[in-house]
């Protein structure tokens, strides 16, 4: 059963999170809290879809690293999708693209066989 809300979609043990259009201030931390609550509820795979996100700045990067750390601590999986070019470049600059699997679309991230656009180590 798929439950689609404004900011997230649940599919079995997977949740897709849709961050706001800007992740550029500490209010963005609610994404980290949301992610933690899903992990607490036993979700094993988290997809963060950035197709609606116009801008991620250094604060946003810091928050997303926090999200990744939380998922890693629980041995769960996290994938990013729908990144705009400018945001993908920021992830490249700070080295995130080497550490997380990034897909073109949310569907690719949800599907198991698609090839990621980012060269993730994990």
């Amino acid at each position, binding site marked *: 059963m798929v439950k689609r809300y404004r900011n997230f979609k649940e599919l079995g043990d997977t949740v897709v999170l849709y961050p706001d259009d800007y992740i*550029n*201030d*500490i209010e963005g931390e609610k994404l980290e809290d949301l992610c933690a609550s899903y992990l607490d509820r036993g979700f094993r795979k988290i997809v963060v879809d950035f197709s609606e996100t116009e801008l991620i*700045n*250094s*604060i*946003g*990067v*810091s*928050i997303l*690293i*926090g999200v*990744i*750390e939380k998922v890693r601590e629980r041995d769960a999986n996290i994938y990013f999708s729908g990144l705009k070019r400018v945001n993908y*470049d*920021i992830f*490249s*600059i*700070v*080295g*995130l693209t*080497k*550490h997380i699997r990034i897909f073109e679309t949310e569907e690719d991230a949800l599907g198991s066989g698609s090839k990621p656009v980012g060269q993730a180590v994990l």
Partner: protein
Amino acid sequence: MTETELSLERLLFNLNTLAELGEEITSPKDFTRVVKSSLYMVMGSFSSSRGAIFQHENGSGSYVPIASKGLGDIGGLKLKLNDEAVSELLKRREPVDLSSGGAGLLGAARETLEKIDARVLACLTVKDELLGLIAINGKFSGEPFTVYDFQLLSVMSQHISFSLHSHSLLMKLMHKYTENKNLYENLRRIYYDTIHAFAAAIDAKDSYTRGHSHRVSAYSAALAREMGWSNDEVEGIRIAGLLHDIGKITVDKTIINKASPLTSYECRELNSHPVIGYEILSKIKFPWKGIPMMTRNHHEKVDGTGYPDRLRKSEIPIGARIMALVDAFDAMTTDRPYRPRLSFREAICEVRDNWNRQFDPEVVHPFISVIRKEVRRETDNPTIVPLLQEEIDGASLNRLLDGFPRA
């Protein structure tokens, strides 16, 4: 992306971060939020997952966390730096790479920094003062910190230092303000206590008039408020009421307490108290206007037969006209050596009979209005009626006030 493109993008990203940091620290946002955002910007720039900003704690020589990320609750953590370490950090100015022997100079703080997995320590300084420190762990990517990273961190630290310094100055200013405010409150309390002590000393000369100054003070304030005076003006007449009889201090106690009629000498002595009071009070620089003149003229009558200056109605300061009424009213409604107290009814009749002769109608009407409101319980803090020694009901008050001259 080619290496050159990546370098250019990195430069733009960092410039943008610096611009945002500058905007953040000069914003009017709450300081805690500014510091937290600043830390996140630093951590995001170096893809650090754990970090904290410490601020110097006055008096303890320690640095306590004021913002942190990825470290859980570190509220109790303190970085203790001795003078030598502080002086060494100030000399260096640049961020310290804790993984390459830089931690050696930190003494006991080194262990604390290891506990939070800190890899780089940046100083927050203004002039020669170490205001705080930023500690971050290694990059999420595992890449080493470069010389360029240290330069960027140094610039970011300068920005954050500015914010810390401004906040520290503001806190000092607030501390001084609170100190001065408390000092002022203490002085104010002493000032009021002194005035009350004077009032008690005045009333102590006459066993019959105990509490007279306090009642005149309270009645005058209630009447002035009814007449629309400002809070400051009401406070002024409240003080004048407490001190209006201060001149009696120099009058012989036997004259004040004499039950039989006074001789002309005694009368002169007693009637000198407004002028003596004026001379005493005019040497004091009160924060309220008119207190000496209210004291001098509180025995004037609107028909010009009062003393000491025989002033007529509008020549008498309005505060003195208020005090003339409430002073006489309190004298009438309390026992005196030469007669027992009048009833409320008799006192009001006296006021009515001396309307526009002794008492100013402009003052009498609001006075009646206050009493009426108090009897009808239309006021939150009744002042006059509770001090009278009898019960007054609304119906008999209405009958009593019927036929009272209209303004």
